[in-house]
C-alpha cells in the first residue's frame, strides 16, 4: 500500500519520514521503501523572465535574462509562447532531464546559456510541447518546481499483512501513527449537504443474498457534470499509483484510499428500473466487466443487478453497462459490506485482483460503510456541481454485534516472559482504539474497535500490547524445558555414513527439483507402472510431474556438465521418489514417498595427473564405491546378481540382493551402465554408469554397531592358486568354491587374464589364499591338504583346470 505523507499529514502530525518508517515497521507495518515524489524534477526551479533580446546569430532564438533566486542568469530559448515577466521552469546546469540527458552550461551559436527553460513535455509532466510551461505569476523565483506544482511528496511503500485490512488506507495508517506517537487523529468532516427529494424516491434496493451482503447503502447525486478532477486530487491519487479517470470516479477512489472502504459509482440512468438487486448470479449468466471481458458467472458469484441484468461483480469489479460516462448526470454511489470469503472466491474464479476485492476479502470496517458513503457523496457533489438527494438507501440485514474480549492482567506476562503491568496493558489498548468496558482485579473486558476484525481472543490483545510496546523490550531467555537428549535418528546416521563413503569415492552431491518433465521418466521404461505423480497446476511443462526416479534428473545434470566441458563427473542425490499410495500405508500421507540414493558417473577413473593413466571409469569402479557404502553401513551378505532393469545395459548391470537373517532376499537396488538408448535420449555418449538404491532397504540391512573377533593368535599359511575356467563361469562361483574350504580365512582375486596361451573361451583366475586355524599353528601338510581339496572342488564343480 502506497501512503502519501502529504496526504497522511492531513490527519495526524508526522515525525520525519525516516523516523515514521521506523516507527511503523516497529508496530508491524513494515515500510519496504521510502520514495520521494518529484525527485525527477530535482534541479528544476521557477525562474522569472526579466528581459530578452534576439539572438545575434539565430533568428528563432531569444537570449533571456532570468531571475532564478541567485541573481540574473542568461539563458538561450527557442520557444515563443511567453512574455517578459512570466515565471517558467528553469533546468539549472547539472539537472538530469526525464529523457535521460544532462543539462550543462553551453554555448549556443556563440552565446552562453546557463541552463534550459522547459516545456511540460520536456519535464514529463504532460504531453504539451507547444511552448514553455507558464507557472503561476506569484511563484517565487528559485523555488523547486515540485514545490511550486504542489507535487513534492514522500510516499511510503507499506507491506500490510493480510490480517490488517484496517491499515489499507490513509486514515488506518494515521490511527497507527497516532497510537505509536501519542498524537490524535483528526477525522475529516463529510460536509454533506442534502436536498429534496429523498433518494428513496428514485432508487429501490433489495438484498436477496443476506449471507453474502451484510449491508448495502446507496446515495444518489443529481445534476452531476462529469469532468476532470482538480490537480490536488489527481496528484494524491497518482502518488498512490491510481490513475485519475474523472471527478466522480476519482472521488470513489479517494475515499477508498482515505478510509479503506471500496465504493462504486453507477450511472443511475442506466440502472434499469432504478432498482438494485443484490443477488447470486444465475447459472450461465453473463456480464461484461469494466475491463471489457465478457464473463460467464457462477451461481456462487454475488452480483449487483438492476431489474434486468447483472451490472457489477459485487466487491470485485463494476460492469461496462452502467459505467460512469462523460454524459452521466445522475450518479448512484454504492457502499457495502460483502462477506469476505465469497468475494475471494469470486475474485479467484475470475482471476481478478482489484483494490476493492483486496480489501473486501480481508474485511472492511462494518461501521465505516455509511461514513464513507457520505464522504464520497459530498465530494462528488462538490467536484461535479451536483446535489445529494436526501437520505441514504440503507439495507442492513445483518447487524454486527460488538466484540468484547477479556484480558487476564497476568496473561501478557505469561506469554511474553516479562512483566507487563495492568496499566501498561490498558494504555496500549486504549491508544489503539479499544474501549475498557469492565475492569476487575484479575481481568478487564475490552471492546474491540469495529475496524479490527482480526482481534477475537485474548492472545490477540497480547499481540496488540506487545507490538505497541515494542519487541525490543522483551528480554532474551532460554526455555527451561528439561527432557531426554534425543539420539540422532538411525536413518540420519545411515545417510551421513553413506555420504562420507560416497565422498571418499569421489561422488559430489546434486540437489535437483523434485518435479521433472513427464518425458524425462519415459526413457527409463515401465517401472512397475511408476510414472510419477502429475501436478494439477505445474509452473511449466518441464516441471510437471513429481519424479518416480532420481536417475533422469541426474542424467540431465551430467549432460549439463558435459556441455560445460566438465568431462569427469561423479554425482549422487539422496531424495524422495513419489508414487501413488498402495495398500498397507501406515500414516495419512496422501502419497508414497520413498527415499532413494541414486548416482551417475562418467569420465576417467583417476584424476588426470603426471603418473596416472587415462582409463575410463567402469562398472567395477562404481561397484567398489557401493561396496564401500555397504561396508561403512555394516551391510553383509549382498550379492550382485547379473541383470538390473530395463534402463541399464543388459550386459553390464547387476541387482544388489541382500539376504536377511531370516533368509528372505531383499533387493537393495541396481547398478550398471546406462542402456545405450537411454543414454541417447539424454544426449549422453556411452560409458555412463549409474546406480539406484532404496534407502529404506539399506536401513533394514544396515548394522551400524558391529562386533569384533579379536586378532588371530596363530600364524597363517599363504598359497597362490591359478585356475583356468570357461568365460561364462562367474568369479563369484570360483571364490565361493574357495571359501567353502573351512581352513580358508581369506581369498583375494588378484588377476583375471584372457588370451594366449590361455585357450579361446577361457580365462585364468589367479588368487592368493590365506589359510589359518583359530586354535593352532597350521602345518604345511594341513595347508597342502586344504589346497588340494579346493582344487578338486573347482575341477569337479566348475570344470576348472589348474595352472602352474
Amino acid at each position, binding site marked *: 500500500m502506497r501512503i502519501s505523507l502529504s496526504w497522511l499529514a492531513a490527519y495526524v502530525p508526522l515525525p520525519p519520514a525516516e523516523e515514521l518508517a521506523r516507527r511503523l515497521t516497529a508496530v508491524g507495518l513494515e515500510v519496504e521503501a521510502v520514495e520521494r515524489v518529484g525527485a525527477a524534477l530535482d534541479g528544476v526551479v521557477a525562474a522569472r523572465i526579466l528581459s530578452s533580446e534576439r539572438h545575434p546569430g539565430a533568428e528563432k532564438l531569444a537570449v533571456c535574462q532570468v531571475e532564478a533566486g541567485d541573481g540574473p542568469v542568461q539563458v538561450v530559448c527557442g520557444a515563443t509562447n511567453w512574455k517578459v515577466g512570466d515565471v517558467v521552469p528553469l533546468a539549472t546546469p547539472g539537472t538530469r532531464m526525464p529523457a535521460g540527458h544532462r543539462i550543462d552550461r553551453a554555448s549556443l551559436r556563440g552565446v552562453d546559456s546557463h541552463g534550459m527553460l522547459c516545456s511540460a513535455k520536456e519535464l514529463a509532466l504532460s504531453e504539451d510541447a507547444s511552448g514553455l510551461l507558464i507557472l503561476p505569476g506569484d511563484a517565487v523565483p528559485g523555488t523547486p518546481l515540485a514545490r511550486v506544482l504542489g507535487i513534492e511528496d514522500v510516499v511510503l511503500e507499506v507491506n500490510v499483512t493480510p490480517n490488517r485490512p484496517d491499515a489499507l488506507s490513509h486514515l488506518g495508517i494515521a490511527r497507527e501513527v497516532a497510537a505509536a506517537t501519542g498524537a490524535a487523529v483528526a477525522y475529516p468532516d463529510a460536509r454533506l449537504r442534502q436536498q429534496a427529494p429523498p433518494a428513496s424516491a428514485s432508487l429501490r434496493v433489495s438484498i436477496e443474498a443476506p449471507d453474502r451482503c451484510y449491508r448495502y447503502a446507496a446515495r444518489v447525486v443529481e445534476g452531476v457534470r462529469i469532468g476532470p478532477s482538480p490537480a490536488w486530487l489527481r496528484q494524491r491519487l497518482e502518488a498512490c499509483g491510481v490513475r485519475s479517470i474523472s471527478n466522480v470516479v476519482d472521488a470513489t477512489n479517494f475515499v477508498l484510499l482515505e478510509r479503506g472502504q471500496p465504493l462504486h459509482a453507477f450511472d443511475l440512468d442506466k440502472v434499469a428500473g432504478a432498482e438494485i438487486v443484490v443477488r447470486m448470479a444465475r447459472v450461465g449468466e453473463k456480464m461484461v466487466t469494466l475491463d471489457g471481458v465478457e464473463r460467464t458467472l457462477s451461481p456462487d458469484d454475488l452480483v449487483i443487478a438492476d431489474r434486468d441484468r447483472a451490472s457489477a461483480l459485487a466487491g470485485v469489479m463494476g460492469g461496462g453497462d452502467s459505467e460512469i460516462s462523460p454524459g452521466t448526470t445522475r450518479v448512484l454511489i454504492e457502499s457495502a459490506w460483502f462477506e469476505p470469503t465469497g468475494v475471494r472466491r469470486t475474485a479467484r474464479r475470475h482471476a481478478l485482483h482489484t483494490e476493492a476485492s483486496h480489501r473486501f476479502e480481508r474485511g472492511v470496517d462494518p461501521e465505516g460503510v455509511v461514513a464513507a458513503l457520505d464522504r464520497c457523496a459530498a465530494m462528488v457533489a462538490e467536484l461535479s456541481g451536483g446535489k445529494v438527494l436526501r437520505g441514504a438507501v440503507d439495507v442492513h440485514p445483518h447487524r454486527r454485534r460488538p466484540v468484547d474480549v477479556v484480558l487476564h492482567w497476568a496473561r501478557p506476562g505469561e506469554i511474553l516472559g516479562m512483566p507487563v503491568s495492568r496499566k501498561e496493558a490498558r494504555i496500549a489498548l486504549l491508544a489503539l482504539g479499544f474501549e475498557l468496558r469492565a475492569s476487575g482485579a484479575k481481568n478487564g473486558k475490552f471492546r474491540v474497535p469495529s475496524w479490527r476484525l482480526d482481534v477475537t481472543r485474548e*492472545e490477540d490483545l497480547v499481540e496488540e500490547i506487545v507490538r505497541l510496546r515494542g519487541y525490543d523490550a522483551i528480554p532474551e531467555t532460554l526455555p527451561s524445558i528439561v527432557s531426554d537428549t534425543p539420539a540422532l535418528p538411525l536413518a540420519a546416521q545411515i545417510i551421513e555414513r553413506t555420504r562420507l563413503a560416497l565422498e571418499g569415492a569421489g561422488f*559430489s*552431491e546434486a540437489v535437483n527439483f523434485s518435479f521433472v518433465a513427464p518425458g524425462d521418466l519415459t526413457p527409463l521404461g515401465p517401472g512397475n507402472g511408476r510414472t510419477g505423480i502429475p501436478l494439477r497446476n505445474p509452473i511449466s511443462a518441464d516441471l510437471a510431474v513429481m519424479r518416480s526416479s532420481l536417475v533422469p534428473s541426474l542424467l540431465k545434470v551430467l549432460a549439463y556438465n558435459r556441455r560445460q566441458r566438465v568431462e569427469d563427473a561423479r554425482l549422487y542425490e539422496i531424495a524422495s521418489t513419489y508414487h501413488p499410495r498402495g495398500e498397507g500405508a501406515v500414516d495419512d500421507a496422501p502419497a508414497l514417498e520413498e527415499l532413494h540414493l541414486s548416482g551417475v558417473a562418467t569420465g576417467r577413473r583417476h584424476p588426470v595427473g603426471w603418473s596416472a593413466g587415462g582409463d575410463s571409469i567402469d562398472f567395477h569402479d562404481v561397484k567398489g564405491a557401493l561396496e564401500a557404502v555397504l561396508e561403512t553401513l555394516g551391510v553383509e551378505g549382498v550379492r550382485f546378481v547379473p541383470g538390473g532393469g530395463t534402463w541399464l545395459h543388459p550386459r553390464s548391470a547387476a541387482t544388489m540382493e541382500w539376504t536377511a537373517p531370516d533368509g528372505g532376499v531383499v533387493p537393495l537396488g541396481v547398478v550398471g551402465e546406462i542402456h545405450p538408448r537411454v543414454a541417447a535420449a539424454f544426449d549422453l555418449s556411452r560409458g555412463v554408469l549409474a546406480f539406484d538404491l532404496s534407502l529404506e532397504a539399506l536401513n533394514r540391512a544396515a548394522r551400524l554397531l558391529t562386533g569384533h573377533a579379536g586378532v588371530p593368535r596363530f600364524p597363517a599359511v599363504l598359497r597362490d592358486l591359478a585356475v583356468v575356467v570357461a568365460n561364462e563361469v562367474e568369479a563369484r562361483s570360483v571364490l565361493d568354491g574357495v571359501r567353502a574350504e573351512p581352513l580358508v580365512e581369506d581369498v583375494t582375486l588378484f588377476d583375471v587374464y584372457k588370451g594366449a596361451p590361455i585357450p579361446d573361451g577361457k580365462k585364468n583366475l589367479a588368487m592368493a589364499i590365506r589359510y589359518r586355524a583359530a586354535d593352532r599353528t597350521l602345518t604345511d601338510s594341513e595347508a597342502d591338504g586344504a589346497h588340494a581339496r579346493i582344487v578338486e572342488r573347482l575341477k569337479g564343480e566348475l570344470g576348472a583346470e589348474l595352472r602352474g
Partner: protein
Amino acid sequence: MDLVRDLEALAEGARLSIASASDDRALEELRVRFLGKKGEISAVLRGMGQLAAEERPRVGEVANRVRDEVESLLVLARQRIEDARLEQELRGSRIDVTLPGRRLLPRGHRHPVTRTTEEIVAIFARLGYEVASGPEIELDWYNFEALNIPADHPARDMQDTFYVDGAAIGRPEGEGAVLLRTHTSPIQIRAMKRAGSPPIRVVAPGRVYRSDYDQTHTPMFHQVEGICVGPAITFADLKGTLAAFARAFFGAGTRTRVRPSYFPFVEPGAEVDVSCSICGGSGSRSGARCGTCKGSGWLEVLGSGMVHPKVLENVGFDPAAVTGFAFGMGVERMAMLKYGIADLRLFYENDLRFLEQF
C-alpha cells in the same frame, strides 16, 4: 723373540692397510688376509710349535692382542665406510617435491544446501531438539487448515500452491485437497500429534514448493522448521533461542532484532533480522552502500512467533496450560548469506565447478 717381532710388524701393516681401505670388499680381503684360517696371524701362530714351552704364553698373549686389535680396527673401518656411504647418499640429488601429489580419487563435495541444513539442524540438536520429517505431498489440512489458514483466507495468497490431482494417486474425491507442502510447518502439526503431549522440541528440515519462478524464487526450495512447546514457554524464550542460534550460525558477534509480523499460525508473530554478515551491521562496505543488506545493516532471516492457540487446539493441546514458539527459515537464503552466493540459480544447476567449491 722373532715371532713377537713378526707379530708387531704384522700389526703395524694391518693398521696401515685397514686405514686406507675404502670399501667393504677391500675390508673383507684384509679380514681374510689377517684373521682368516690361512691368514697371517694363523701363520705366525703355526710357528709357535718350535718355541720353548716357557716362551709360548708370552707369544700367545701378543698374538691375541694383535688379533683383537685387528678385529676392532675392522669394525671401526666398516662403520667409517658405512657412514661415508650414507653421507654420500644424503648429499645426492633431490626428488622433485613440487610434483603434484598422487590422488587416486577426487574428493566428493556436499551440496551447499545440504551443508547449510546440517549446520542449522546441528545447532538445534545441541539445544536438545529432535529431528523430524514429514511428507512433501501433503494434505490441505496439515499444510493450511490446522495452521489456522482456512480455505478462502487471504493468507493463502502468501503461498502460491501446487496441487496434485487426487485421482492420480487413487484418492477419492471429497477427501480434501492434496498439495505440495508450501512450508515445513505441517511437520509441526505432525510432530505435535505424534508426541501426543508436551513438552516437545522438534527441528524439521525439508523441501518445500511454491509456484513462483524468477530471479529470487525457485519453485522448490528448502526450509528448516522448529517448534518448542511446553508449560511456561515464553516470547522471551523465543528471542533467546533465536539469538543463540544466530550467534552459532553467523558468528559470535551477531546481533538479532525482532519485529512484529504476521503468520497465521503464530501470535504474536515476529520477523527476525540479524546484523548483516557481510558488512557487520554497519550498512556500508569499503565506503559504498552494502548490497547485501541494502545499507540497512540488517538481514531478514527468520519468521517466528508464539504458537497460535488455535493451532494448539487443533492438535489437542490446551492453550491455557501450554505455550510454545515456532520458527522457520529458508535454507537457500541462509546459505547465500553465509557463503556469499549471489545467484539462486547456482543451487539447482548442479554445475560441478560450483559444487566443488564446497
